[in-house]
């Protein structure tokens, strides 16, 4: 018995020592967590877009601050989300970057879940310089947390040669709604045999585009109250989706590579998506001159329906750790205020920001031969200013997953009102 007590005692002592020592080492490492004074660490994804933009920003900032050092760590977006969640929830700041790129749909959940972990940038940037929808996406209660970056302004990429074959021009695609576009699509399909669009049933991007174009979202303006069952825009979007499927105008892909293949091989006639898709279209050089970008069709019969919407897009956030001042300075003097930098961005890589002075300075008036000489960047920025402002709220992806299942039920013959009512109930129980 005594022995056991002794054993237990020694066990506890060792555990205690182990616990203490691990605490010590944390503290010791806390101060030198890779963010030493002259280096700013950034986590971002997509080397061709976001990281390239960072490199251009670094160059521009270095002209003024030659000692500046930027360590860009490239990770897939999913990995960044996961790493941020694990680090922030564990309460340790060890290994966290100074700046992180977060998608607009997702950022509110981070800001809400880890309220003290992000550094406010209110006052460091002039919010009037940025497109309103982007400011809404990066702020909570008038407090700005993000330096807005790219716009996800959407357009309808169309194959002009296919349209021509079916007897249409891009003029016929201006200011139409989805029902009219579906009629055009039927004709195109008849003549060319090509699907009108391609979509992944598991990716609800297109539905989000449609409802935001009518100024609606899954949640009310407070970002929390579920708005599914009585959401006219969502209903209309579901109907459009079903019409596209039933008229056999929608090809199906199941991942990004299949999407690229469908578009680049010429097996679809159009694609409504964010402007960041431009480089992927241009990757297929043989189709140069065969593409154009028009505004997306509007939702039929919905009040406040527009031709502008947003898909994706992300912004820069500064974490509340050592080096935040320098990080903020870097962001505000590049992404936050530098017109020349934005001109460089669009010239080098076709990235469109949401910085209004850059738009006004004519940074985007570049005609693109690939799109038949169309000034697509200018068009996108114009549409970007028309995007209805919505609050993405906390639960975009959770509701997405619920609605993806609802869509399957609806496509299989379910009654739309009932399907959405069920989704509303489910979302209300699931999301707290």
């Amino acid at each position, binding site marked *: 018995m005594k022995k056991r007590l002794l054993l237990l005692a020694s*066990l506890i002592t060792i*555990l205690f020592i*182990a616990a203490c020592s691990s605490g010590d080492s944390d503290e010791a490492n806390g101060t030198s967590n890779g963010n030493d004074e002259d280096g700013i660490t950034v986590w971002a994804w997509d080397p061709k877009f976001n990281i390239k933009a960072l490199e251009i920003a670094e160059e521009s900032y270095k002209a003024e601050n030659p000692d500046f050092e930027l360590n860009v760590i490239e990770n897939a977006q999913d990995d960044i989300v996961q790493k941020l969640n694990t680090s*922030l929830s564990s309460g340790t700041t060890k290994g966290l970057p100074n700046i992180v790129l977060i998608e607009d749909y997702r950022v509110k959940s981070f800001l809400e879940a*880890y309220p003290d972990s992000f550094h406010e940038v209110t006052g460091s940037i002039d919010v009037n310089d940025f497109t309103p929808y982007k400011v809404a996406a990066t702020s909570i209660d008038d407090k700005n947390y993000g330096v807005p970056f790219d716009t996800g302004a959407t357009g309808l990429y169309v194959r002009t040669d296919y349209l021509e074959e079916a007897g249409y021009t891009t003029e016929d695609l201006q200011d139409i709604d989805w029902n009219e576009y579906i009629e055009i699509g039927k004709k195109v399909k008849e003549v060319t045999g090509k699907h009108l669009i391609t979509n992944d049933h598991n990716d609800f991007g297109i539905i989000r585009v449609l409802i935001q174009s009518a100024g609606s979202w899954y949640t009310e303006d407070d970002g929390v109250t579920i708005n599914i069952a009585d959401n006219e825009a969502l209903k209309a979007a579901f109907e459009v989706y079903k019409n596209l499927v039933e008229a056999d105008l929608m090809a199906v892909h199941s991942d990004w590579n299949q999407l690229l293949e469908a578009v680049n091989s010429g097996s679809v006639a159009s694609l409504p998506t964010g402007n960041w898709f431009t480089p992927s279209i241009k990757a297929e050089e043989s189709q140069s001159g065969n593409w154009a970008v028009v505004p997306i069709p509007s939702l039929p019969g919905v009040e406040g329906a527009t031709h502008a919407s947003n898909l994706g897009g992300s912004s820069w956030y500064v974490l509340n750790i050592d080096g935040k001042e320098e990080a903020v300075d870097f962001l505000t003097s590049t992404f936050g205020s530098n017109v020349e930098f934005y001109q460089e961005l669009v010239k080098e890589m076709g990235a469109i920001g949401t910085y209004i002075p850059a738009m006004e300075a004519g940074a985007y008036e570049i005609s693109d031969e690939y799109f038949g000489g169309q000034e697509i960047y200018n068009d996108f920025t114009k549409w970007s200013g028309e995007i209805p402002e919505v609050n993405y709220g906390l639960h975009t992806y959770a509701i997405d997953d619920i609605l993806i299942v609802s869509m399957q039920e609806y496509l299989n013959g379910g009654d739309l009102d009932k399907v959405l009512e069920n989704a509303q109930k489910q979302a209300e129980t*699931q999301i707290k």
Partner: protein
Amino acid sequence: METTNLNKSIKQKSEKYKFKPKKGLIGWIFILISVILICLFYFYPMLQALLLSFQSGAGVNLQFVGLENYTRLFSDPTFLAALFNTVIFFLIQVPFMIILALMFSVMLNNKKLKFKGLFRTAIFLPAVTSLVAYSVIFKYLFSNNGIINTILMNLSIISEPILWMSDPFWAKIVIILAITWRWVGYNMIFYLSALQNVDESIYEAARMDGASAFQQFFKITIPMLKPIILFTSITSTIGTLQLFDEPMNITGGGPGNATLTISQYIYDLSFEYTPDFGYASAVSFAIVVMIVFFSIIQFKLAGDKK
């Protein structure tokens, strides 16, 4: 006289063992290290997870909610769908794989078989591949214009490509095929090694009595392998209940949530949606309960009635 002496010496011997505290202590110290490490890295986190499962909230704003997370489980359609999928995978895939592994092992155990090593390696090889790598390859094999569809169409078995990833039924089939491919060889190795221990003379005697190959298989091989079959079905059950990599990488849980597994739901709750680690750990404890439950059933079904 002799017997009392003997008794005495036995008694002395046993007393000798009893009064050797040092020997015991050294033994304890040896296992102490692993005991501490296991406590630290297994039981302590488990305990923390259990405590966490009584809390709920976004990210770090956790609040104590008692058993609410567990009652929420039963009214959460996504969890119930994930549970349903997982049970389907487990009910269909585990028996299918076990039978296949048994067949392969008996075939490979055949003394007359040539190139045995080659076949064994070929069947075992999938088990050493990375889960993610093979999942991605399966995804491409079964893509809409992938090689499987091409072959089936060239053989005129189907006239239009099957949209494997977009159909709830076929998506489940793909997942089942994938995990079966990955794990058959692994289970087969257990059976093969067990078969080495089965005395050849038993089969010889059976043959002398005129037993057919089928009779030999069902009356000798299966009973002899019973403990191993039990072991592999329990490990496979646990593996299937924790299924994550394959649905994550091949179908992403889709279409809809037709291939969503419980583990993937935990991932979604923690990293995909606004993180609710409390509810996520309640879901993970649901897996624990299920594993215990199914393992007990398997023990009861297959175990000796002692």
